[in-house]
């Protein structure tokens, strides 16, 4: 019969319409955003942040500039700290990330040998000014290690375990970094892929 | 109340002026699309004139047919030949001056002769109210034969237009 299909479709939408009133839980899928939010998955990633242990002074980052050179859109800018004599310290003086450029690829997290940069869960970052406000400085980037434990407990445990093992093993010989990289990579973390783990 | 009639009469002259102005635009504007729009305005004015002659049905028919149908056709035709509405092309030919002169003389003579004619106004028909039903009765009664013929002509014209307008030969 001509038009029957149309009628059936109409009934479907009518049912949906009525369902939103009769049984809102089933009928409406909208999450009223600012008031309610959907829980995020642990591996959700947004823009990167820097980790410190304990107090904000103890930045894990050693200003090695690996992430800066690996970053595909080149949104990271690092200047290491220098002491009075002008020697380079293992600490960033300037660590800027331009959120307007960053594309959330997560490569910085993967390449960091010191577990100091991770991807954040923060997504409400709208700003009024593109040039100024989205250029995030070191102070704004710093977050405590416990914060990481809160948002990504699984990764936290894994990294903690790895770090403990590393520190136990690496106590006797500190400088041999490169040779230890290869034997370590495979057996210790088969599920980790290409993330280098020596500290 | 008299003042309202005065307003109404003034309205007629205003309408006539607008109509004529629009008509002048129709024949002088360079852009054919603008011409068509001016023609619509002019035809609307004619429809209002019909209202002053107490022919409501015709006024509506004027709008429905002239503006709804004929103008639509015209505009369609303009669209389909739009390359020729370029501003660089002159839109009038060389006989505008003689035409203007002749028409002016024509009008003068016409008005002169018109003034000489004493019309016998038939006040009964001036006051008569012609509703749509009466028109329909006339169409179906005394004028049924021309009515039928005109419908046949219309059909023939439409068929002819379709055949002429076909692109695939």
């Amino acid at each position: 019969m001509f038009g029957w299909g149309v009628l059936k479709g109409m009934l479907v939408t009518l049912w949906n319409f009525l369902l939103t009133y009769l049984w809102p839980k089933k009928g409406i899928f909208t999450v009223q955003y600012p008031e309610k939010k959907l829980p995020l998955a642990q591996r959700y990633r947004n823009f990167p942040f820097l980790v410190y242990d304990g107090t904000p002074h103890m930045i894990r980052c050693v200003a090695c500039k690996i992430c800066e050179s690996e970053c595909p859109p080149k949104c990271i800018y690092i200047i290491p700290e220098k002491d009075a004599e002008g020697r380079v310290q293992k600490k960033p003086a300037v660590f800027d990330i331009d959120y307007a450029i960053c594309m959330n690829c997560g490569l910085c997290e993967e390449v960091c040998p010191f577990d100091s940069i991770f991807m954040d869960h923060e997504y409400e970052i709208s700003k009024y000014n593109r040039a100024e406000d989205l250029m995030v400085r070191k102070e704004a980037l710093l977050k405590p290690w416990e914060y990481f434990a809160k948002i990504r407990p699984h990764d936290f445990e894994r990294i903690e375990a790895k770090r403990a093992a590393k520190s136990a093993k690496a106590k006797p010989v500190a400088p041999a970094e490169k040779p230890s990289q290869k034997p370590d990579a495979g057996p210790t973390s088969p599920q980790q892929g290409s993330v280098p783990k020596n500290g | 109340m008299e003042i309202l009639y005065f307003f109404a009469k003034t309205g007629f002259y205003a309408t006539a002026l607008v109509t004529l102005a629009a008509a002048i635009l129709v024949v002088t504007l360079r852009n054919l699309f603008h011409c068509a729009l001016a023609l619509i305005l002019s035809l609307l004015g004619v429809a209002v004139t019909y209202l002053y002659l107490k022919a409501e049905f015709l006024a509506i028919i004027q709008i429905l047919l002239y503006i709804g149908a004929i103008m639509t056709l015209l505009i369609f035709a303009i669209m389909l030949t739009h390359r020729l509405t370029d501003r660089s092309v002159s839109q009038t030919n060389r006989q505008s001056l003689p035409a203007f002169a002749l028409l002016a003389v024509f009008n003068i003579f016409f008005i002169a002769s018109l003034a000489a004619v004493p019309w016998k106004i038939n006040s009964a028909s001036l006051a008569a109210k012609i509703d749509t039903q009466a028109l329909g009765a006339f169409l179906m009664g005394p004028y049924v034969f021309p009515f039928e013929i005109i419908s046949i002509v219309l059909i023939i014209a439409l068929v002819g237009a379709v055949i002429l307008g076909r692109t695939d030969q």
Partner: protein
Amino acid sequence: MAYAYLIPVFPFIAFLIIIFNGKRLKHQSAAIAIGGSLLAAAVSTVVILNTLKGATYSHTFEWIRIGTFSLNFGILIDPLTAMMLFVVTYVGSMIFIYSVGYMHEDPRFSRFFAYLSLFMASMLGLVLSSHYVQLFIFWELVGLCSYFLIGFWFEKPSAAKAGMKAFITTKIGDVGFLIGLFLLFTCAGTLQFKDFTPEFLAAKTQAGGGLFALAAILIFAGACGKSAQFPLHVWLPDAMEGPTPVSALIHAATMVAAGVYLVARSFVLFAQFPQALEVVAVIGTITAFMAAFIALTATDIKKVLAYSTISQLGYMMAALGLGGFSAGTFHLMTHAFFKALLFLGAGSVIHGTQTQDLREMGGLFPRMKITSLTFLVAALAISGVPPLSGFFSKDEILLTAYESGSRVIFLILLVTSFMTAFYMFRLFVLAFLGKPRKKIHAHESPAVMTVPLSVLALFSAVLGIPGSPYWNHWFQGFIHGGHAQEIHVNLFVVKCSVAAAFSGIALAVILYRFLPKVPEWLAKIFKPLYLVSYNKFWLDELYQLIFIGPFKKISQLLFRFDAVIVDGAVNQSAVQTVNLSALKNWFDQHIVDGTVNGVAWITQRMSRILRKLQTGLIQNYLLILLLGLLFTIVIGFYR
């Protein structure tokens, strides 16, 4: 009765539907045509039943008015018309149904039915006509259909030629017919059938009816053409090139009977003039005999039947010519049925064996039982075996001949009757009995063909009864309009007729079934006669010799005359002209041309000015038009 005009309308509507939708309808067109014919049959049945009760009907209306003369067409229904209606609608319907089977494979199936319907419509119109001119119109329409249908397989050159031949030959008769009508109108002042009463004619011919007689004979010439009478019969055998149902319907049952019908319709006119009747009788007799004689040796199954048809038509004409109105019309009716049946049977045979040559057939009886049986019935009927229909009608013709006093005609007709029986059974034996002479895959035709055969067989068997003494010669009374006819049975004639029939049958069966060598032997002995028969009296050749050859000769002579004398004179004058022209040339070149060129030069100059008016631009013209309008207004204003 008032609905009688519907009778031809139904087939005509069928024709219109089919001819305009032939491509789409395909085989449904047959259903439409049959429906049209059956409706016509139904209406005509009502009409016939009314007529049987003694009612007649006539209705006229004005067709054209020229000055004071008005041409009134209309419908006339009397017993003769009723009989013709019966024949045309019933035989026609049967043949329509039959054609579905016969023409099934034909690519122009629907057009065939369109033509058939048109034919049916025109034939019915012819029969119902109340006016000579109206009859003539339908007469020509019928001829046109005949032409279409003979040449239906126009891919065959022979069919196309046959169509043309039929058309031209009948047209010769028609010209006579037309002149006859003119004459008749001049003399009588009317062409309405019902005006021609004996009293009217008697009043008109008091001063001498020579022109009337001439008109009658000329009308008979038309009938000759249509009914294939002696000098104009040559087209009918060739017409067998058409499809067999066509032969059955048109060239055996109905159209060719139109001539007879015409004579019967004009019988009052003929009866007034013994001379005219004599002509009719003699021509009919000659035709009957000659055609039967030719049929003796024909080998094509349809040709045999065609000549048989001519012969039987001659019979009818002879009967009419001898004053036997009822005998002629009665034979017309019975003949229509059994001849249609014969043709359809032949068609069935052709359909089954894919050949028309009698010499290739044989032994079909066991394979085509229904066809054979019905064919046998028809053959017996045409031979005049009692109590089948042919016996009664033919017997009455013979009786008429006998009683007219002309022994020669009677004898010739009797011999013809014998020959009829002979060739019919020669045909039957050759086709159906014995052994197959050639390997042919004969098979019975489908039911759609055999059922009409059976119905027609039934009719041909019993249709003689109404005219027989057992029904007290009811038919004869009916056809005369209710006046009981006095007909006494002459046993001598009956005996002669029966004897002729049976001897013919017996001879044929003996000769061709049991002594197959004898016919050849006979042919050798009577070689001249055989050749005469085999070559159809050399009539075609004769026509060639008498009419066409001399025509060509004369044309050649004229051509010679033209080429030598006329052309010579012309050429001579041309030479002289050339000489003269040379003289004139000089004059021309210098003086005349000078003038002309001068004029042209002036004209050109003038035109350049005037040409400005002829721009070809409509708007320009419009402007000038406006100028003219203005001019008139100004003139009007200051008048």
